[in-house]
């Protein structure tokens, strides 16, 4: 089918969270209410038992949308049913390269998130809620601030909400630019006014989190789903998506595609429908060579895997992950070794430095990839890069180290030929470039193979023919 803009796609979006999102009114309390907003909160506070809500969330199978995909309802049920001060933190740090869905959800429909947070807090007996938003999202933070003010004025927040006796305070907390604060325990430290360093787990935040109290931490999209599940029931929610990945997902597609953007689909649609159908496929004259299916920390997949369903389980089976649901597409104009270098550089910059494998590993990986891209490495170095990644994985306090190791090792593994070709090409370029120091007795080239190149080729176990062109 094709729409008025001549767009062809074999699938339609299934907009639940982004429904009416194109209407600017949706960002205001009045607009949100005109589409039925806050009705389920009103009903929940008066008539629904908190235990029923916890149960329904668990029953719905809603999985966290921030990266790990853990059951939201289970997490709520882990909070102790005591009178202690408990906290809810909405993770709106969204700093993983490739992810931009929370930005859209907060900008276009802030009240959907706030309503979800109030209902979750009510269900878990939480009295203080925070939205931790990355500092770069200044516009969105202002929108949330206004929406929270509106909710206070309307009596949905504050003391004795709608006469129910339930109290909830909500604060929008702006971060200040550090990817690591998206990690849940680093986020708690940042909220307590410290440098954002991850904490050792256990104890898990559900037991001992913010100010030492039990704390629920969920992603923006996860919490935005809550009011819909409570309104329509777990069975309704399960009617979307697959058995192990129920619901819809806002997927951020970016990179080398014609129509990058956020698309809301049922989990389990094919990657092809997402990348070619909705996002328009590669740019004219280009071919897709690789893509990250779940943000920059997911191992890359290749076009051979294009027909897989986009679900938590299918991505895991393919050796990757759905993560935050962000697809970055690379085409044949993109050098995979340089993409690996960009990826490593990011994690090196964002490593908090607390554990050695991550701090040193990200640093060394970046340096070695730089050498690959400058033609100074040998193919053997590629094995060393892979072994460095193996030594990072599973050896760190948080998973930031793994988040670099997984994609980098997948690229070296799946595109080894390209890495070797880059080394050879760059070495040849350096060899042919004027100004190179010609050692005594060395063939000045170009035309002949450089001794270094020959050495590398031999190391890689390949036949070397000398005397040919470069």
């Amino acid at each position: 089918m094709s729409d008025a803009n001549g767009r062809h796609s074999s699938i339609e979006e299934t907009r639940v969270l982004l429904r009416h999102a194109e209407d600017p009114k949706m960002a205001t309390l009045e607009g949100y209410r005109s589409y039925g907003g806050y009705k389920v909160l009103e009903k929940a506070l008066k008539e629904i038992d908190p235990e029923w809500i916890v149960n329904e969330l668990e029953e719905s199978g809603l999985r966290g949308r921030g990266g790990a995909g853990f059951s939201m309802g289970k997490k709520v049920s882990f909070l102790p049913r005591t009178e202690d001060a408990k906290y809810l933190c909405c993770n709106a740090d969204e700093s993983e390269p490739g992810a931009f869905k929370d930005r859209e959800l907060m900008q276009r429909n802030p009240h959907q998130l706030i309503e979800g947070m109030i209902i979750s807090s009510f269900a878990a007996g939480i009295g203080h809620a925070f939205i931790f938003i990355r500092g770069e999202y200044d516009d969105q933070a202002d929108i949330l601030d206004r929406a929270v003010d509106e909710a206070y004025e309307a009596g949905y927040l504050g003391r004795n909400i709608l006469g129910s006796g339930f109290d909830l305070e909500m604060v929008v907390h702006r971060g200040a630019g550090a990817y690591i604060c998206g990690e849940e325990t680093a986020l708690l430290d940042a909220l307590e006014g410290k440098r954002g360093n991850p904490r050792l787990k256990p104890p898990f935040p559900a037991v001992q989190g913010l100010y030492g109290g039990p704390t629920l931490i969920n992603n923006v999209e996860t919490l935005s789903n809550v009011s819909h599940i409570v309104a329509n029931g777990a069975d309704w929610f399960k009617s979307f998506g697959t058995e192990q990945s129920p619901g819809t997902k806002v997927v951020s597609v970016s990179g080398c595609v014609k129509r990058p953007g956020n698309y809301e689909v049922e989990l389990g649609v094919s990657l092809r429908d997402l990348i070619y159908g909705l996002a328009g496929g590669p740019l004219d004259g280009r071919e897709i060579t690789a893509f990250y299916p779940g943000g920059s920390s997911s191992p890359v997949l290749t076009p051979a895997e294009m027909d897989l369903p986009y679900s938590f389980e299918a991505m895991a089976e393919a050796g990757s992950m759905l993560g935050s649901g962000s697809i970055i597409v690379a085409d044949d104009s993109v050098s995979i070794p340089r993409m690996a270098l960009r990826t490593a550089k990011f994690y090196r910059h964002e490593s908090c430095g607390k554990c050695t494998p991550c701090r040193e590993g990200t640093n060394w990986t970046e340096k070695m990839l730089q050498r690959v891209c400058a033609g100074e490495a040998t193919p053997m170095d590629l094995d060393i890069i892979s072994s460095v990644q193996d030594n990072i994985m599973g050896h760190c306090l948080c998973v930031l180290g793994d988040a670099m190791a997984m994609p980098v090792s997948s690229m070296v593994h799946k595109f080894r030929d390209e890495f070797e070709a880059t080394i050879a090409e760059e070495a040849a370029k350096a060899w042919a470039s004027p100004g190179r120091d010609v050692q005594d007795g060395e063939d000045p080239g170009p035309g002949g193979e450089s001794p270094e190149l020959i050495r590398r080729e031999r190391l890689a176990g390949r036949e070397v023919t000398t005397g040919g062109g470069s």
Partner: protein
Amino acid sequence: MTPVMPSDFDPRNAEPEDFTSPGLPKDVANTSGRLPLGDPEQIPDPANVDVPTDLREEIQTVVDKYPDRDHKGSPKSAAIPVLWVIQRRYGWCTPEGIVQAATVMQVTPAYLESVASFYDLLRTSPQGDHQVLVCTNIACWMRGGDELLDAFCEKTGADREAAGHGGGLSADGKVLVSGFECLGACDLAPMASVNERYFGPLENADASTIVDQLEAGEEVLPEKSLDRRGLAGGVAESSDPRVVDGKGPNR
């Protein structure tokens, strides 16, 4: 960005000028650079520090928003938002501003300094009147982010090397140009954040237009601003009968 000090540098006998890097403008908060005011490890005595009343009230309002306001000892949750207040007021986290904030919050200046230095957006050296953050992360890099950063440096005269490592100031010190990690707007790639608003996709020539507009005090490229952008999929009315407004059994 932070001035590089020789290792034998002793701040106690230095002149205020020694603290500013050559070419950096004098700070709007009339600061003497990184000169520590008093002992950074002591909680400042309110009697000795002059804090403007409106600033004191603003900081107190922020502190009062957090549940740890009644904790024993000093409430620290407000550290980041209070540093934002200081940065908005003085242009960057000036030493004076940090001491003022520490006085109201009753924490040590060293503590706030340690927090400020951890976060990329809190600046502990002057950052000009306008900030341009150019994303050079994966998606933007694929679509020309590095070249866009080059174009901004060329236009402003900011040092490309500095811009790639935390930020460089334009020749006149008014515009900070900084390469940045993913800003969460890969759909706009290549994109930049200009004074905390997002613009994209940008062409290299837009760099020049943006800088001219900033200098003339005009609105920056309205047609490329994120808040004018619709959803990628356009207005899509779903034909799915399961998706309804406000009609759920529990509504």
